């Protein structure tokens, strides 16, 4: 009997061979690479990887990843992903979508998913515009802003994804920047490893439609001191991780600190805002249906059920 050493998967193993149709220079490339790097770092088995996405430019991402891919409906990615995750808890589940997809049309599911805390990582491509429909204001564009593709200024205000995630119950909340793939990959890897619903809001450039928040803008090229408009939370000694999840005071304090940081506009903090280990939806399900802790729903024998007791009760 021979035991072969496990083959180490390379970055290439996470790439599909499909031609990519994003605009040249799109921030999506950075996010795609970051995801693939994270998957490679964690050596996730592509056969046990299910990547779900919504609709829009970001929705095409699963097609470029070697794994099971589900390109779903606009705004509904978290619902399909949750159903998938619950049906097969052996899978690593990633959910992807744009800011319009997740914080606009999908806002209700963003909240619903946070309440459940099922185990998946949700990566939002946040570029402030609806790209695929040619650059309308997205839910993260602030009031008064106008990109070159908009005929008028935005007259609705932008939402704060981090604060919304805190209020909804996400147990891992982070921000990253698409053009720093190494850092983003590390954050995504942590989000995947986290048990529970993890949000990574990735600030992203849209070179075609968003002329406000460009690579140069993030780099602060226009500022006299030429400093980045981003800073890493950990660089300023911020630690969003709850040490004792049973300590309500600590939880509230950490949540408040995260929300306070999320309103900092210049420079914008990236990194992990909040992290806590709490029982997941799956944990609750396993308590309710102990058999599912042994093997996932999809592998349960549900085809030999004895319904006689139910009928007997109806006599």
């Amino acid at each position: 009997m021979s035991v072969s050493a496990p083959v180490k998967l390379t970055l290439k193993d996470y790439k599909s061979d499909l031609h990519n149709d994003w605009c040249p220079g799109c921030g999506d490339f950075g996010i795609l690479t970051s995801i693939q790097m994270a998957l490679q770092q964690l050596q996730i088995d592509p056969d046990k990887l299910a990547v779900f996405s919504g609709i829009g430019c970001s929705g095409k991402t699963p097609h470029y990843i070697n794994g099971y891919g589900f390109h779903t409906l606009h705004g509904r990615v978290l619902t399909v992903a949750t159903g998938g995750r619950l049906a097969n808890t052996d899978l690593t589940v990633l959910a992807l979508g744009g800011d319009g997809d997740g914080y606009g049309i999908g806002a209700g599911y963003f909240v619903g998913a946070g309440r459940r805390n099922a185990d998946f990582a949700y990566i939002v491509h946040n570029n402030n515009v609806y790209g695929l429909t040619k650059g309308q204001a997205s839910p993260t564009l602030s009031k008064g802003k106008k990109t070159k593709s908009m005929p008028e200024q935005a007259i609705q205000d932008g939402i704060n994804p981090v604060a919304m995630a805190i209020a909804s119950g996400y147990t891992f909340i982070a921000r990253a920047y698409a053009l720093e793939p190494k850092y983003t990959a590390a954050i995504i890897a942590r989000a995947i490893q986290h048990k529970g619903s993890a949000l990574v809001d990735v600030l992203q450039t849209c070179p075609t439609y968003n002329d406000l928040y460009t690579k140069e803008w993030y780099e602060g090229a226009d500022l006299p001191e030429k400093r980045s408009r981003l800073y890493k939370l950990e660089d300023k000694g911020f630690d969003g991780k709850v040490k004792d999840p049973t300590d309500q005071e600590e939880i509230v304090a950490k949540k408040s600190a995260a929300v306070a940081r999320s309103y900092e506009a210049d420079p914008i903090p990236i990194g992990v805002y909040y992290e806590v280990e709490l029982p997941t939806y799956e944990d609750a399900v396993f308590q309710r249906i102990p058999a599912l802790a042994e093997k996932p729903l999809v592998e349960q024998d549900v085809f030999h059920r004895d319904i006689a007791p139910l009928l007997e009760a109806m006599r």
Partner: protein
Amino acid sequence: MIGGPQGSGINASAEVFAKACSRAGLRVYANIEYHSNIMGKHSFYRVRVDDEDVRSYKDKADILVALDHETLAGDGDHRRWATHFGHLAEINEGGGVIYDADLGDLDASARKDLRYYAVPFMDIIKKALEEVGKGDQARRYEVMKNTVGLGASLALCDYPFDLVAEVIRSQFKGKRSEVGELNVRAAKLAFEYVRDHFDTKAFPYTLKPHTEQKARILAKGYEIHAIAKLKAGCAFQTYYPISPATDESVFLERQQRDYKLLVVQCEDEISSINMAIGAAHMGVRAATATSGPGFALMVEGIGFASITEAPGPVLVMYQRGGPSTGMPTRQEQGDLQFALHPAQGDFPHVVIAPGDLRECYQDTFSAFNWAERYQMPVIVLSDKKLASVYTTIDKLELTWDQIDRGELFTGSEWTPVDAKGKGDQGSQTPSRNGNGHGDLDLAKVKEYLRYALTPEGISPRSRPGVVGGRFWATSDEHDPDGHITEGVDMRVAMMEKRMGKLKLLAKTVPQEQQYFLHGPKDAELTVVAWGSTKGTILDALKTLEAQGKKVNYLQCRLMKPFPADGVAVILRRAKRIVSVEENYTGQLAQLVQEQTGVMIDQRINKFDGRPFSEDEMVNALSRVYDGAKAEPVVTHVG
């Protein structure tokens, strides 16, 4: 018939009585009418009992138990526009009215032929409580009025009290057995009170247990839909609370632990259907349940499931009075056309409309097989009437249990064959949990393509976790590997592949599950109808036959794919055709016309939110039979 304010327990009394009759070998058909209200509004429950099979309700009852004044007089005294005028008009000649003596003197002028029985409900409750030393707590036990009403009515129709006592006891087990005994006692005291104070021997309507006791069950439609889902191996049910669909999901929630079924209460119906689709793609049998307003949210999911060829979900849709919020707790067959055309574009899905509880079981069970074999969503069109009707069915009728998981790609790591359980799963699914596939020769598979263009249009399906079975699924048009395409040839091929699956399905569904001609082949009048009017039409046909009227009934059941050829043959042969539907426009009539080219001019429609009674059906059909033009039917009752 028992009537009272919601929250007064009329359900419990009616159902105890129904059970006591069913267990004694009698056939029962019971139906409830209630408001979308938690407490206080008027509701009533009819229980029809017979030696023979009963499949509908009659306009008139023999006994009315009135727990409040409104049951007798209606609500005209506190509403600008009365919703009903009490139930006295719905009692058979010489019938009995049992009412609470506390209501005072009754105005019997409208129905002098009835017998009135004033029973001191609270005194009886108090007496029962005194026996256990709780005489001062009568107000707390006021809800036992329903039991008093039940006991009193048993004395009138001379039904054996012990049969009822046994049912009451069986419903209060363990810690609650004390309350059960109290109820038995209150019912008994009421029973004795009526026997001692009135001449019950003169009461013309009596009820005897059947001589032969058969092992029947007494069930509601939502329970049957749920049991069919369990038997079919449904492992994942999602829902958002909505009348009258919620009961099914709550029933399943109770069975989660025992049957390894996960029920998820979602944030809305969009989430419900999409979670179910996600689960179906993972390889479990997934389902949801809703009614019209929820379905209105789910529709984008139907198209999504269809274009991604998801093996499901199965959606049981309980129609209720529309449009919009409409009448949440009332009956209507108003969503047939909606279920047929739920979303943008042309796509395949199945719509089937069971006519009674037995068919609710069969169609819900079959739905999972179709969903997996043909990889498309299946809608089972039920309704409020089927959901809440409480009726006897032969236990043996629930034996439909051949599971077919369709064409599967299982990959090399998967251990496909385990013949255990082959006997009751059929040859399609040799593996123990039904996930295996014995026929696929892996050596011949070079590259797995989830949407492979096979000669028949069905591509073996894989699921995440299966080695070598990797695929992409997209709501966009796609290539065989599941990546987006906008190419013309592939578009045409994929449309034809998907749509063609409906023709395949049509070939395999047994003809009697698609449509069925009841009654004589040769008739003067052919009734065309669908769904839950079935029992009422069959009961009416018996009466019409006795009157010498030759009427038959074409029941349409499979709505999509519609069996146009078979239906057309029957209708072209028909002398005269009349459609019967509980909606305004005649949605089946439209479908039949569109699919067969046979016109249906005579349409009997009912859209008052109440199901047809047997009498209404007989009268409406007789009119048409005798040459009059069909008219809408309105129930003038509570």
